């Protein structure tokens, strides 16, 4: 992704934050980030970056570059900085950072929140920023007191010298004038007082009294409200419209066409929504007017017979399969899925002649800015992006399709406009998780040893649409996750990828291809255990002798779940995965009665390396599991005549509180580098559940959702 997005980043680079006097009379403390692992990605190397503002009144504000979508980054990233700065978490407030090249996610090459990268990207950066700020504050105090800096220390937001104290606020002005130290020593892990501790989230309180501001809550003076309808056929465009009736309705100010839809702008949202229903629209259906699931499946099935591009090749899997004493083959198919963030897509834009402000619940400030600018003919640097809280992200808000309508409408009426999608618009105009048609084969030798594993993946590429240069020469890296890192000790391993587009825009959906490929790999490993006549846990464990981190989570999950000791009538399934640098295993315990499934308990063992905040890790694992469980049970987006058939939560079912099983999360101590935690839980639960259903019924599920496999889910 780097090359493409980096050039975009360079084009949109701005000096957003400069050292200077704040409106409140304090100072912005600029922290250099020179010395980052990839300084080139930051643009002008030593450019000052404000991660931190310390005002004269001791208000300490951390600017968080990642979007808060529930995953806890406002808290975890602040913990990293606060650890080195020497202040309590409670003493810090958080603001969303603006767009800036300095906020480039070094793992993704643009200002993006995704791929469970936030802690991995911020781990060094934010601790270093905190250490630099601490060093400057100490130096300022040392100068004032006429003592050596190394005689001073920080304590709870102040520099201390014996009984004398100078608060950070008192020192901020002098400190900001000092050179930023390039060489700071970070605390060793054993000295951490905040990092690794289960701190409460700093955003919780505002989410309990209605004061938290999401994209949908933005209010600007003079703001109008927009309701939006897009071509019902995916990929279709606007041909023409007649809004005579709509324009005569109360409160309606204008009706504006976009590339693929119509926006009604009114004084209030309900007025706009009502008027929208009266607009007569002619759509240009485009290429998808006849597209349905059968056609998509046929395309993928046909493509799967091609030989794909090699993503991994150990030994010679094809030859080993030919010589194998026993060969097992299977085909797995997975459906498209919607993100269904509970906050529907929305955006507020204030477009003026030479500048614009965009208030967006976005996961990618860089691309949001570039897109917003392009829509109305401004330069990126003329567009300020204000990141609100996100009412769920899950990859949906890596897209920027919710920005154009607000920009176009605001430009047309000359006022700020907030456009909110209806749930039906949101559900039927998502970028769906790619469907998959995968074949897998394995071979045993005469002694019963597993000697060959060959996985052939077929599906459309997300990255080909989002970042085309990445796939010009390489396989989409977000199509082969949890496949190329097949961990088991097998001498001949082949993983091939066949890209086949299906006419539908596919998108990054929580855990991306991990959820697809882990389902196939870990379900098929269960099939192989059955073939080998072995216990599914022991079969896996025996092949993981060279993989201690996998083995450890597998053993832990099995032990904690009481593997093999389920109560009478209960059955267990197990699965594991490495993704985002995190190792995880889950055991799902179920019962089946008259074809009806009950999920009783999910046990999850996690080694995500060094943790920043176990409280948030726990939340993410629990939530990720339920996200994956919802999809495994019911998730299925279907098309007829190019139109998505699921329109709201009655036809796109969500797990509800009474259906949520007990989840036991076991976080393993680890000194390894931090891994990502927002997504792995989602990927592992599906195969563990399918394996439990096999254990209970002998029925092997090779496609999802479970509710469509003859199993009742209550």
């Amino acid at each position: 992704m780097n090359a493409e997005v980096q050039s975009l980043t360079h084009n949109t680079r701005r000096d957003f934050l400069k050292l200077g006097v704040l409106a409140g009379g304090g100072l912005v403390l600029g922290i250099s980030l020179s010395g980052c692992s990839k300084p080139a990605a930051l643009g002008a190397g030593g450019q000052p970056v404000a991660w931190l503002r310390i005002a004269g009144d001791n208000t300490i504000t951390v600017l968080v570059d990642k979007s808060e979508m529930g995953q806890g980054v406002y808290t975890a990233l602040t913990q990293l900085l606060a650890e080195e700065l020497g202040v309590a978490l409670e003493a810090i407030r958080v603001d969303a950072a603006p767009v800036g090249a300095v906020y480039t996610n070094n793992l993704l090459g643009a200002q993006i929140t995704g791929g469970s990268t936030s802690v991995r990207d911020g781990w060094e950066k934010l601790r270093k920023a905190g250490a630099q700020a601490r060093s400057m504050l100490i130096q300022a105090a040392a100068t004032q007191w006429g003592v050596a800096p190394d005689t001073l220390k920080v304590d709870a937001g102040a520099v201390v010298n014996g009984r004398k104290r100078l608060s950070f606020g008192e020192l901020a002005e002098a400190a900001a004038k000092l050179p930023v130290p390039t060489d700071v020593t970070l605390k060793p892990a054993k000295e951490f007082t905040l990092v690794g501790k289960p701190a409460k989230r700093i955003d919780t309180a505002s989410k309990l009294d209605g004061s938290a501001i999401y994209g949908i809550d933005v209010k600007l003076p003079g703001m109008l409200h927009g309701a939006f309808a897009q071509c019902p056929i995916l990929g279709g465009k606007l041909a023409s419209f007649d809004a005579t009736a709509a324009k005569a309705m109360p409160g309606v100010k204008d009706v504006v066409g976009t590339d693929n839809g119509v926006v009604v702008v009114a004084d209030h949202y309900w007025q706009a929504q009502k008027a929208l229903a009266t607009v007569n629209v002619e759509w240009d259906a485009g290429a998808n007017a006849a597209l349905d699931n059968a056609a998509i499946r046929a395309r993928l099935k046909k493509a799967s017979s091609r030989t794909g591009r090699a993503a991994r090749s150990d030994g010679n899997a094809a030859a080993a399969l030919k010589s194998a004493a026993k060969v097992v083959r299977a085909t797995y198919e997975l459906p498209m899925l919607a993100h269904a963030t509970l906050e529907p897509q929305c955006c507020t834009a204030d477009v003026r002649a030479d500048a614009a402000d965009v208030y967006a619940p976005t996961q990618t400030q860089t691309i949001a800015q570039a897109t917003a600018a392009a829509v109305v003919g401004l330069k990126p640097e003329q567009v300020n992006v204000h990141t609100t809280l996100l009412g769920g992200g899950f990859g949906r808000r890596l897209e920027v399709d919710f920005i154009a309508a607000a920009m176009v409408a605001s430009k047309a009426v000359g006022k700020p406009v907030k456009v909110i999608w209806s749930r039906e618009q949101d559900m039927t105009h998502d970028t769906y998780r790619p469907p998959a048609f995968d074949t897998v084969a394995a071979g045993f030798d005469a002694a019963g040893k597993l000697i060959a594993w060959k996985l052939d993946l077929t599906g459309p590429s997300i990255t080909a649409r989002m970042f085309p240069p990445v796939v010009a020469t390489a396989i989409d890296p977000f199509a082969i996750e949890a496949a190329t890192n097949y961990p088991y000790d097998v001498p001949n391993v082949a993983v091939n990828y066949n890209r086949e587009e299906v006419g539908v825009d596919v998108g990054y959906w929580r855990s991306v291809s991990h959820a697809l490929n882990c389902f196939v790999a870990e379900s098929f490993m269960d099939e192989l255990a059955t073939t080998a006549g072995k216990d599914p846990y022991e079969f896996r464990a025996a092949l993981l002798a060279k993989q201690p981190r996998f083995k450890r989570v597998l053993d832990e999950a099995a032990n904690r779940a009481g593997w093999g000791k389920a109560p009478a009538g209960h059955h267990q399934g197990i699965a594991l995965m490495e993704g985002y640098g995190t190792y995880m295993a889950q055991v799902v315990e179920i019962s089946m009665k008259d074809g009806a499934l009950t999920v009783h308990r999910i046990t999850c063992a996690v080694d995500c390396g060094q943790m920043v905040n176990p409280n948030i890790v726990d939340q993410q694992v629990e939530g990720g599991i339920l996200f994956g469980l919802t999809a495994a049970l019911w998730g299925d987006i279907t098309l007829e005549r190019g139109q998505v058939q699921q329109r709201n939560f009655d036809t796109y079912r969500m797990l509800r509180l009474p259906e949520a099983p007990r989840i036991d999360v076991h976080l393993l101590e680890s000194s390894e580098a931090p891994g990502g935690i927002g997504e792995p839980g989602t990927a592992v639960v599906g195969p563990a559940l399918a394996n439990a259903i096999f254990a209970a019924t002998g029925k092997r599920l090779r496609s999802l959702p479970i509710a469509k496999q003859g199993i009742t889910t209550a």
Partner: protein
Amino acid sequence: MAAINVNGKALETDAAPDTPLLWVLRDHLGLTGTKFGCGAALCGACTVHIEGEPARSCQVALTDVGTRKITTIEGLSTNRSHVVQQAWLELDVPQCGYCQSGQLMSAAALLAQNPTPTDADIDTAMAGNICRCGTYGRIRKAVHRAAELLKKENA
């Protein structure tokens, strides 16, 4: 102009009579704590109290509200002091938080009618509120915790 009583205040709104209470609250009265999720009473994000009863405000027209008293998340307490707010804070329930106004209003209504709910009672009362982030386990614990806090308050 229509009269409406929200959070103990007698207010007026110029919203049309058929406007759903949700949009009256959000757009006309500026109370954005009540969320839009589905527009069809399927998700519970817009839950408010009407005379103390939980209601999906996306399905109640302004004209049907009449003189009945509305309570929104903003009016549940001052300073987040309601027992459900205390319990939610203690257990760090929210993730994205978007559904939590509705969850809190449903939980508060449950406890007002049934101060010692069982798991089954919680299932029934909370089934209409979707949480896409999967905070259900903590919500269940927090409702039980709020019941304990309520008992102490009433002791």
